[in-house]
């Protein structure tokens, strides 16, 4: 049996006026977690919104699971109203998560709140191999956040912003251009779909393997309802629809078809 139930909130931290973290007690029933996996969280006990909200693990250890959440609409607003010691209904861990195996040199790319699971990944990789060489590119629309955290987790860190003039202006594709072709064993990326769509052909062309952590609206979150899809090259129909929640949310850049 997998876990679904109430867990206690251990701590809550405001990162900026839109982003916050919730750290919850890790239930004994959850034997293993992988970076890039997510939980489907019930945001309200009163029905509305009806559906759970998928939130990635941004950090975990034996006793706790951390979520880093950006307030977007009602669901995330409700999550923001929870206080320490209240209980929250989570379900997971869900999805495949990142595949990592002893890489020595990696590139990670995070965009916006997509940096949350990337942070979780880097923490694990550093824990397992303190000597791993990490190049990180982060892109933000406005003012960057968690900069210090990523500094500590990266050997090289480049940050771009669309509006904050203290940083390089533009999208992650700019710094990416300058390092494309370097001998990274793996690239890990998470961010808004337009970002993933922009970087994937660049990395594919350079034959750099990339794991994309993707996003789609979900309902069940476990692969039963088929409302979340990722279009994948090859398969019965010249393509096939895989389930973002169950077969993903990680797909390799080489296999994804980005439609308009």
């Amino acid at each position, binding site marked *: *049996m997998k876990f679904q139930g109430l867990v206690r909130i251990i701590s809550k931290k405001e990162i900026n006026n839109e982003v916050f973290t919730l750290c919850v007690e890790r239930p004994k029933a959850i034997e293993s977690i992988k970076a890039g996996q997510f939980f489907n969280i019930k945001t309200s006990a009163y029905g509305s919104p*009806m559906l759970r909200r998928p939130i990635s693990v941004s950090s975990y250890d034996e006793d706790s699971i951390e979520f880093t959440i950006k307030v977007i609409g009602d669901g995330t607003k409700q999550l923001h109203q929870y206080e320490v010691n209240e209980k929250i209904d989570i*379900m997971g861990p869900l999805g495949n998560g990142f595949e990592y195996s002893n890489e020595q040199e990696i590139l990670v790319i995070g965009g916006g709140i997509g940096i949350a699971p990337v942070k979780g990944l880097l923490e694990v990789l550093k824990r397992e191999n303190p000597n791993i060489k990490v190049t990180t590119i982060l892109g933000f629309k406005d003012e960057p956040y968690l900069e210090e955290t990523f500094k500590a987790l990266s050997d090289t860190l480049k940050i771009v912003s669309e509006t904050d003039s203290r940083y390089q202006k533009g999208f992650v594709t700019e710094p990416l251009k300058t390092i494309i072709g370097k001998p990274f064993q793996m690239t890990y990326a998470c961010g808004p779909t337009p970002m993933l769509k922009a970087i994937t052909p660049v990395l594919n062309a350079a034959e750099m393997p990339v794991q994309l952590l993707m996003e789609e609206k979900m309902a069940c979150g*476990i692969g039963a309802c088929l409302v979340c899809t990722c279009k994948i090259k090859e398969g019965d129909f010249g393509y096939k629809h895989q389930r973002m929640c169950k077969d993903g949310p990680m797909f390799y850049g080489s296999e994804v078809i980005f*439609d308009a």
Partner: protein
Amino acid sequence: MHNQSLKLGVDLNGLTLHNPITVASGTFGFGREYSEYIDLNQIGAISVKGLTLEPRSGNEGIRIVETSMGMLNSVGLQNPGVHAFIKKEIPFLRQYQTKIIANINGNNIEEYCEMAQILSNEDVDSLELNISCPNVKNGGLAFGTNPEVVKEVVSKVRKHAKKHLIVKLSPNVTDIKAIAKIVEEEGADCIALINTLSGMAIDIYKRKPVLNRISGGLSGPAVKPVALRMVYEVAQTVKIPVLGMGGISNTTDAVEFLLAGATALAIGTANFANPKVTAEILNGIETYMRTYQYDDINQLIGDLR
């Protein structure tokens, strides 16, 4: 604690269930995923994801819109095809004591018949003729809303279906009673309703319908009052049993449907919010039965004062 002298078994006119709680087609896959969250033995029957003769990749684009206490879906019958179902999914489901309802969908009447024929020789407990799917171009909704077509498809499929036959109705009709009567006359063993209401959403930022196929199927608590009304109307109209569904999310909803005359219930969208909702509702019904002194669920069915 369960079943302590309470009789929960129901008979849908040949399909017997050890309890009246089933799960609705398309919301529970083939049971595999939910088996990690709930004991499938607790569920009276599983109506599997809508099957077609050939595998289908389903609809392109966004397939879901959340609405106020409801959701629009436009999955478009993505499924591995009836043969893969027979090979891979029936053996899995047979590990459990839950009954198997095969939800069948055709592009035309011949396909419906062919599927009924094929599945009549397989180890399933019931065939659920879905003439109400709003999310595919051919068949589906078009079949379910035209009384003459309903008559034709049910009578033809009946001839090929050597198993218990459920016909699942579309709520997008003026007079559900008239359709139900036809279905009964043409020999269905049981009527299931409601399928989803036809609805729409627009992305005001892109200024486009959210769903490629413009409209999708509305389900969830939002539709419950409409579903309950239709189940009541049909239960008043036909003699064959009704499998009621549409927005059932908690014990109160479930008891309302039973009182309205549904012999069994299907839970769909509510599974998404709470994967254990079926077991919780079953529990709640037992508590209700004890409080109101029913020892057999069959006494409760249709027991409006």
